């Protein structure tokens, strides 16, 4: 499915889910889950070759949510995409449940790596890319990172290795929402100019509006250009996207929405009212 209007409707539904999960479980990182929704939807309903009925097919593409704190967005995506019963989302962050605040490896079908500690997803994806090459499998590897995550040294170790090995099966997305936990990501570290950094490291870097579904789809769907350069999409996003009173307000890195805020958010997202 690559009808952009349909994908936008899915994104709105996922945002509603994510906000409800944060409210019900009283868990933080809501702003971070809302900024990467289009990136997840474009990938899972776009080029990612996966079959929810055969989640461990060795020839499948791999998606790694390296910014594991956006777990609610991943769980909601996987449920919507048919990897597991959406009713399971109601057990998110409950005692003894399968869905912790950061995803564990195969905690539900479709979770390809345990993340939560930043700077781990890209090296793991590089290993998967090398494996695909060794095993002569057609798999591609998609990694979603945060901008703050790009402060981790391991990211740049991986960034230097992948072009040396011409690992152009990789597609990295950076959710550049300009915030990290306690401040502006461009002020805390000299992150900008981010795309130029990746280019200097030998990557095929493009910048897109991370909420423009068609632009994201086009960027992640482009075939490797034969140069061997892996691809990175620097997606300019808004933390808390989709809800006016959350957008670009970093309090929503930690804040938990009230029941009233959940209702207001659903109205703004164009979602039907949830029965009280």
């Amino acid at each position, binding site marked *: 499915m690559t009808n952009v209007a349909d994908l936008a409707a899915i994104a709105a539904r996922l945002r509603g889910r994510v906000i409800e999960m944060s409210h019900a479980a009283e868990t933080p990182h809501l702003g971070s889950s809302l900024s990467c929704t289009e990136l997840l939807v474009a990938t899972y309903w776009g080029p990612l070759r996966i079959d929810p009925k055969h989640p461990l097919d*060795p020839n499948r593409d791999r998606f790694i949510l390296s910014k594991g704190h956006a777990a609610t967005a991943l769980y909601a995506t996987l449920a919507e995409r048919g990897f597991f019963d959406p009713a399971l989302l109601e057990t998110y962050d409950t005692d003894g449940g399968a869905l912790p605040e950061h995803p*564990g*490896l195969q905690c539900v079908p479709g979770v*390809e*790596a*345990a993340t939560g*500690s930043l*700077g*781990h997803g*890209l*090296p*793991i*994806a*590089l*290993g*998967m*890319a*090398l*494996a*695909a*090459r*060794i*095993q002569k499998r057609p798999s591609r590897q998609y990694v979603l990172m945060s901008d703050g995550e790009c402060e981790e*040294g*391991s990211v740049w*170790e*991986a960034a*230097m*290795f992948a072009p*040396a*090995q011409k690992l152009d099966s990789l597609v990295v997305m950076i959710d550049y929402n300009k915030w990290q936990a306690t401040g502006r990501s461009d002020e805390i570290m000299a992150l900008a100019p981010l795309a130029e950094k990746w280019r200097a490291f030998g990557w095929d870097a493009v910048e897109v509006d991370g909420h423009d579904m068609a632009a994201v789809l086009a960027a992640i769907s482009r075939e490797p250009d034969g140069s061997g350069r892996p691809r990175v999409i620097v997606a300019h996003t808004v933390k808390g996207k989709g809800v006016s009173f959350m957008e670009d307000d970093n309090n929503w890195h930690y804040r938990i929405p009230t029941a009233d805020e959940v209702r207001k958010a659903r109205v703004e997202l164009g979602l039907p009212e949830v029965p009280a």
Partner: protein
Amino acid sequence: MRNAFAAAITELAAADDRVVLLSGDIGNRLFDTYRDRCPDRFYNCGVAEANMTGMAAGLALSGLRPFTYTITPFATTRVIEQIRVDICYHDVPVVIVGTGSGLSYASLGPTHHSCEDVGILRCFPNLTVLCPADSAEVRPAIEAALKLPGPAYIRLGKKGEPTIHDTPPAFEVGKGIVMQDGRDVCLLGMGTMTSVALQAAKELEARGLSSRVVSMHTVKPLDEALLADAFRRFRAVAVVEEHSVIGGLGSAVAEWLARRDGPHPPLVACGTPDAFISEAGSQAWMRARCGLTGPAVAAAVLARLGAAR
């Protein structure tokens, strides 16, 4: 031992197309034959151990059997986070190989010493910790690690260590190898210190005490049956390790002992002190300074036996 590792991994990779070797830019020429025979399964990962370790997890998640290989502190303590999360939490069959362990690289200074690696790594769930005693134990240790469903750490010396086995030993994970038997004292050697334990046994022999000497090549899981027997049968049990007295095999045995009821013979812990050894010097000089020679270990055992009398 590193030559034994190179020879073994070269043959195993040729026989098993799941084996992938990741090197942290060391072993110049050491893996030339491997690279000739399996060019698509050797990667020099540069001076970037965090990425190397994370990639190993990704390779293992895809069904391959990667080995990471570099100087011990860089293969282990530098990348503790990646070992803990990417390898142990994912519970994937990566084999981490550290070369030049303990004080093997004495003269290079504390940046290149590794006397804390076992203490830290054995805390991690799912990880098997192997310390082969000599070149003859290297290959069976690698073969055993390759058969494990989860991750392993193999702690190697450098080169020129004394060979204590005349023939390839029967090697089983979690089962110490009895090198010689005795009546009075049990000496447990960790890795390359088993040869020092054998020298200590000779010293004790001259003082009228006979010793059982064991290559405790597996620090985790501990050979509890062997320990139970040793603490029942002998007048003293000594651990000899080129590792800090905090956290290593001696600590592991002490933890095990503390959970048991009843009196027991003394545990003599011979290891490196809780200090960085920053003076220049050879491995032999540093071992002597730490009391890690045959005569020094024998003296420590005799002192404890005298005190216990």
